[in-house]
């Protein structure tokens, strides 16, 4: 209709490999963004000055550390969770920088709109909170989940089964899918309005709609920047909540 041809999903999320062919180490745009999501925060930290009165980049770096401390760890775990600051900070930065490439020209693709990164991050979180649960509670961690004491004994097998599924399957799956689906949806939304803007701009009849679609594209770009941050925050704070539930498992 009106010459508007929506790109296929393959065109939206599948990128050719730069090298490596079909091997497991083949590098495509998603892999490159993942590497940049490691390099950029590292550079940010390395280039920031370490002065008593912070300025410029040092403010950003210290602000991100304080944000993870005060808005993620302290509300979700408390002071004893500060030992997990490196992990949670890494998760927050990695997810955020992986997301924010959605609005960076020439990239315009969030790494987390592919399932690979959200899935392995969710698996890492699963391993972390499980190990913490066993380390702090021993076998009673598993027993507390599979055989909950505050449930009538007749329901314990059923509730225990549901709890096992919830903790060890739904939690990581939910983490991964939440991040992946949000970023993919945002990516599709931006592509939709981008393609729509081009379509109405090149169509003589509907050219008057260009400011509308282009305006929406700008608004959605700003919104996706916010979503990039929000999803990183949600992923990190849920990780903290899961760690806390393992630390204080009954």
């Amino acid at each position, binding site marked *: 209709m009106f010459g508007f041809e929506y790109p*296929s*999903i*393959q065109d939206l*999320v*599948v990128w050719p*490999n730069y090298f*490596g062919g079909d*091997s*497991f*180490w*083949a*590098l*495509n745009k*998603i*892999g*490159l963004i*993942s*590497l940049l*999501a*490691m390099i950029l*925060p*590292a550079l940010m*930290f*390395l280039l*920031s000055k*370490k*002065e*008593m009165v912070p300025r410029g980049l040092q403010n950003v*770096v*210290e602000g991100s*550390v304080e944000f993870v401390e005060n808005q993620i760890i302290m509300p979700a775990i408390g002071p004893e969770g500060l030992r997990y*600051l*490196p*992990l949670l*900070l*890494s998760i927050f*930065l*990695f997810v955020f920088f992986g997301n924010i490439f959605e609005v960076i020209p020439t990239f315009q693709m969030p*790494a987390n*709109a*592919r*399932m*690979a*990164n959200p*899935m*392995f*991050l969710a698996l*890492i979180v699963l391993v972390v909170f499980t190990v913490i649960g066993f380390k702090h509670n021993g076998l009673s961690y598993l027993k507390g989940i599979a055989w909950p004491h505050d449930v009538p004994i007749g329901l314990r097998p059923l509730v225990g089964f549901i709890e096992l599924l919830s903790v060890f399957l739904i939690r990581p799956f939910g983490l991964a899918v939440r991040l*992946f*689906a949000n970023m*993919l*949806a945002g990516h*599709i939304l931006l592509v939709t309005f981008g393609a729509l803007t081009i379509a109405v701009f090149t169509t003589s009849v509907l050219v008057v709609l260009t400011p509308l679609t282009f305006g929406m594209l700008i608004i959605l770009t700003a919104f996706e920047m916010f979503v990039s941050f929000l999803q990183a925050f949600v992923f990190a704070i849920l990780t903290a909540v899961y760690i806390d539930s393992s630390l204080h498992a009954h």
Partner: protein
Amino acid sequence: MLFALLFAEAAEGEEEAINPVIPEISEMFWGIIAFAALYVLVTYVLLPPIQRIRNDRAATIQADLDAADAARAQAISASAEMADQLADVRAEAAAIIDAVRAEADAERERLVARAEREVNAMREIAESEIVAEREQALASLRPQVAELAVSAASRVTGRSIDGGSAQSVVDRYLTNPN
């Protein structure tokens, strides 16, 4: 819309169809490497200096706050001490003023008494001088008054009057006029 796209793509054909939910191994490989590197860097290289400077800053701020508290306490103590000293000084000054005032009052009374004594003495002297002057004046007037009286009496009576007896009458009259 997302699911419609996914299903639409899946329906296009077995070889062309991709499922975005299935992770690519190569993407996961680079993601794991990148995240592991970031975690190691954050833990051992990037975060420690930031935490160090934050701790130093917090310690400096705390030390400054402690110093400010100590200075404030010292100032309050000094202020109280100064107030005490001021009160002592005021009390001492009041005592001195009272003593000086009492001394001045005594001195004034002493001076007034002495002045009164001197005035009395001078008055007495003046009165005695006046009396003496009057006596002297009377004494000097007495012969003349007697002479005038004798002369007047002689003219009235037409005979000569003894001056000696007239003098005694005049003396008696001047001494006791009533």
